[in-house]
């Protein structure tokens, strides 16, 4: 029997032009154009939205949860942290 399951697409949603696209979930769809339409109905009807990205889940390369060492901090690296600086608010660059 052939697999009739559609691909999944990861959905990224942007609330304001210039903001980062944020991952909000995934949808099943036969192709990217339909995925955009499905994503619109699942994620953009109630939330304010100016842009959506969809990415076939197969195209996402991810780390393995088992591979702890990938993120390990073995020695003290706190001296590298930019603690002395105040980062400006990136949310509203227009006000600066």
């Amino acid at each position, binding site marked *: 029997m052939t697999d009739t399951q*559609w691909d999944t697409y990861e959905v990224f949603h942007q609330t304001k032009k210039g903001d980062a696209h944020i991952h909000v979930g995934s*949808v*099943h*769809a*036969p*192709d990217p*154009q*339909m995925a955009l*339409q*499905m994503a619109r*109905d*699942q994620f953009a*009807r109630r939330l304010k939205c100016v842009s959506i990205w969809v990415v076939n889940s197969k195209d996402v390369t991810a780390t393995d949860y088992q591979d702890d060492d990938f993120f390990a901090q073995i020695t003290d690296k706190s001296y590298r942290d930019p603690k002395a600086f105040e980062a400006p608010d990136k949310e509203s660059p227009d006000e600066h």
Partner: protein
Amino acid sequence: MSIDLPSSLPRESVLSLILALADDELMLGHRDSEWTGHSPILEEDIAFSNIAQDELGHSLVWYSLYEQLTGKSPDAMAFERSWSEFACCHFVTYPKGDFGYTVVRQYLFDEAEQARLAAFEQSTLQSLREISGKLIREEAYHLLHSKGLVERLGDATEESHRHMQAGVDQAFPQALGMFEKLEGEDGLIEKGVFPGNDALKREWLDRVVPMLTSAKLTVPASQTNGSHIVDIKPDDGGRKKSHTQHLKQLVDDLQQVYRIAPKAKW
């Protein structure tokens, strides 16, 4: 708020036009909503339920205009009329069938909406122009969705083609009933309210015939001198309020809760 029609316009004909629009949206919205919880996949369930709600919302827009002209409330028009008083075409009243039929019906309806709303944007009647300018934006999305499904399902697999072709065979004569001539229509054409159902049907055929053909679906239409000709009998009667038992069943469902407690405040 009430508004007055310009006295130069034939009042009863304008009202019957608005009512036909409102009743079509209400009945199709209800039939579409019957897919909620039953669509082939979850995403389509939500997308199609969204379209169903939009169609019901559009019926409210038309009923509200009707109220401004007559004082009759949308609730009264939707819930207190007998099934033999609705002016919807038969097309929108039939049971939802399988998903192939539903997709074809929605597509044929959405193209008709594009044709008629675009024509209303040129109307001499201001309220018709204003409303159409708003609704056409949402209807364009409905069309994108239903057209996308027709394009893909028309020749995806042997099975999908079979369902879609059966949908076209069944829905096409029914869909012609959307363009049944209204009472007093000639007066509306003369006054520039709208170009008339014959003109809308030609516009609609120019949209749907090439599209369905490109989706590998056979359409009962031929071409003569660049215009599409259909020589099948349209499923008329709805505009004259002559209906089938399917509308009776639909209206029984639609009004069931309202009739239990007509004076209830929700």
